[in-house]
């Protein structure tokens, strides 16, 4: 019932961790719901809802907040990308 959660760039620095294993309670079945659940832990996790234009990828595919999330998935949160 777990998902692997990853954080990158300034979000990773703000949270102080690059990855976390999170238990998915019943009813938490989208990327947006997972983000809100982690943010509800309080500081510094609230950065997940205060970071401007936060992006999310489920199983290494960029998705929107309504994208489904299930046990075993890899969910990554990060700021807008700035490569190239």
């Amino acid at each position, binding site marked *: 019932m777990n998902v692997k959660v990853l954080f990158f760039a300034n979000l990773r620095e703000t949270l102080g961790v690059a990855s976390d294993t999170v238990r998915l309670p019943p009813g938490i079945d989208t990327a947006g719901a997972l983000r809100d659940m982690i943010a509800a832990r309080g500081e510094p996790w609230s950065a997940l809802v205060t970071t401007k234009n936060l992006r999310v990828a489920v199983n290494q595919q960029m998705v929107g907040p309504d994208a489904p999330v299930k046990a075993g998935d890899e969910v990554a949160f990060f700021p807008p990308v700035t*490569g190239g």
Partner: protein
Amino acid sequence: MTVSVQEADFDSGAEIAALSAGREDVGAVASFVGLVRADKGAGAGVGAGETAVRAMTLEHYPGMTEKALQAIVEEAHGRWDFFDARVIHRVGRLLPGERIVFVAVASSHRGEAFAACEFIMDYLKTRAPFWKKEETPQGGHWVDARESDDHAAGRWKKE
């Protein structure tokens, strides 16, 4: 259609030549090299060009990066007729003047090569999970995504 994410530098001339090596049907190779600019600094409250960048560190999302780059190349290939494409993106710490990214596309005619090469660069800027942290005299800061990059990628949207 090879993509690479690597710390090592690359040889633009060798990469361009490889796309047409042993072939007699390639008439056009369009390519792009992106480099670290020292005048790129634009931290909070600091105007563009005012802050000297001393170095830059590129972070990425291993696994997803390669998939995202491959998907961008495939999307370009679905839009334009070309033979082959090559994408190289460096990660780690880079100094001003160093190469960051290379994109090249080989096709029969130049129109397709230019369009696909620019498309890949525009999408790479908005869809590939890379993040830049600049070191300036004022300290380190993460580079904000540029609205102009979203705009550049947006213009390829089909009606």
